[in-house]
């Protein structure tokens, strides 16, 4: 049981890394909290759902389309909203409210367009049955989602550390002011990061029907809470730190389910608060953020 919870936690945690990854990138680059992240993820789920049921595209082939589509959606959205927000006095706080409004709009539109029933993509699409790892059986969908999540982390790593734009992105993350002083077009860099953030949310959404059982327009807010826990435990503003946050979250959650299941949803919040109080900068962070 322990081994199963550990192994399952690692695999499950990889998926939660993917859920938090885009949110953390957006926070890192723009210092804004995208409270509509979970709802963008929900839209990704519905996109995958319709691509499967109407165009017979399997989630694995739909994923690249969704990634590109959401990226392209992110660019105009950034320019419409974020520069205006960033110019206000307390942008970090106002972003909570702004994206709460965005969340309301997305959820309302989704409820009107998609209806309220639970939906999913048949499990057989990713293959039914268990995958055996070290004598433990895990759902095949978990393993595939985890692999996709790891691929996304790798891709983001390559982008940030091995491309010119990625370097400029990290410069903006390090210091927005100094980046401007160095002649970096911070809005272009941020818009792309925002697009990537949405693309990652969309990608996580593709696998939600398999990882979370079913999807509804209302699923976004629950996902946001998990995503917060993951990125704070990792390190707020450090996208790659999300991996650690995801793993801690996944293993912690499944351990709780094993030994104290009724209290399982207490764990992410507890972790979040403990990490913030003991190491305010997150498990990997260097910067200390105290008042």
């Amino acid at each position, binding site marked *: 049981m322990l081994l199963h919870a550990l192994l399952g936690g690692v695999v499950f945690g990889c998926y939660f890394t993917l859920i938090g990854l885009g949110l953390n990138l957006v926070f890192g680059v723009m210092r804004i*909290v995208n409270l509509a992240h979970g709802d963008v993820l929900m839209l990704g789920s519905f996109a995958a759902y319709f691509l499967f049921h109407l165009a017979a595209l399997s989630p694995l082939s739909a994923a690249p389309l969704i990634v590109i589509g959401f990226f392209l959606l992110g660019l105009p959205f950034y320019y419409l909203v974020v520069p205006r927000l960033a110019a206000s006095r307390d942008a*970090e706080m106002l972003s909570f409210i702004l994206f709460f409004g965005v969340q309301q709009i997305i959820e309302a539109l989704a409820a009107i367009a998609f209806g309220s029933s639970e939906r999913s993509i048949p499990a057989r699409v990713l293959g039914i049955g268990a995958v055996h790892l070290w004598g433990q059986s895990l759902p095949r969908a978990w393993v595939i989602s985890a692999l996709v999540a790891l691929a996304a982390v790798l891709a983001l790593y390559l982008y940030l550390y091995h491309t010119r734009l990625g370097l400029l992105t990290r410069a903006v993350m390090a210091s927005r002011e100094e980046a401007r002083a160095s002649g970096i077009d911070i809005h272009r860099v941020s818009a792309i990061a925002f697009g990537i953030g949405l693309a990652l949310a969309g990608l996580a959404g593709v696998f939600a029907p398999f990882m979370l059982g079913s999807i509804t327009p209302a699923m976004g807010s629950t996902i946001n809470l998990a995503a917060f826990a993951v990125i704070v435990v990792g390190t707020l503003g450090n996208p790659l730190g999300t991996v650690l946050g995801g793993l801690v979250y996944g293993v912690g959650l499944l351990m709780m389910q094993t030994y104290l299941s009724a209290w399982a949803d207490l764990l992410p919040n507890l972790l979040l608060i403990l990490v913030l109080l003991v190491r305010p900068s997150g498990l990997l962070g260097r910067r200390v953020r105290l008042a």
Partner: protein
Amino acid sequence: MPRAARDFLRVGVPVVLLFALLPLFYQNELLLFNFVLFLILTQGLNAVYGFTGYLPFGYVGFFGAGAYGFALAVMHLAAPPLLALLLAGLAGVVLGLILTPLLRLSGAYFAIANLAAAQMVYQIIANPALADITKGPYGVSLASVFAPRASYAVALVILAFVLGLVAWLRHGRFGLALQAMRDDPVSAAMAGIPVLRGRVVAWLLSALIAGLAGGVFAWHISVFYPETAFDISISIFAIVFTLFGGAATLTGPIAGVLVLYGLYNVIGISVPQYFQLIYGALIVGLVLFLPRGFASLLSRRGIDVP
């Protein structure tokens, strides 16, 4: 007359009177009660956000603690409502004390940690393991003390107290010290202001107000589930109203509640099919085009907003 008293007389008293008289003309008392509730909550939030700069995203945690403080006092101690209400306020303060270490955090970190803390309180109260004490997920029924008129009246008393408190904060020495700390904690300390203690006091005042609001809510509504008392939208509404009215003023949050909550209900009643959509768009528009609140429309023109 001190400015605090003057502001209270000119702004606070008319608001309280208005809501004391409105039930004579308008029967949806619950709507009025919710207005009063948000008038209380926004000023409570104002006490901590407006005067210290901490944005308590999980403010509903204190509200829920108050609601359950009231319920537990009634169910287990058979306390009369007014005593239960005091215990509700106490529950808010105790939770505030427990969460005091969060004040070490800043910005988004504080907001998120506070949200997580509110979730935790909810998850503990709603857990079936504590069903014997809190009734867990099965909800509480306080039919024995149900008294909508009396609870409405008491809510007005709390509102008057809270408006007076914020008027005092705005002009009183302690409130000025809080604003000084918000502007610059270092020079505030150098001016001899005990920064940490000031923050904690503002935090606990704010928790007390939310606890009282939760208590009177529990009394008024009498049958509810943990989901009702810890509904995150209570936090968000209070924040949105405060922000758009204009934090750190007395009238800002009042205007925010009257206008935005008014609009919310108008939309909900007149165009229910697009309720959420319109309200979401309204919020986005306000953040983008009026980020410093209604009060800024006046103060930008050099008019001092009480």
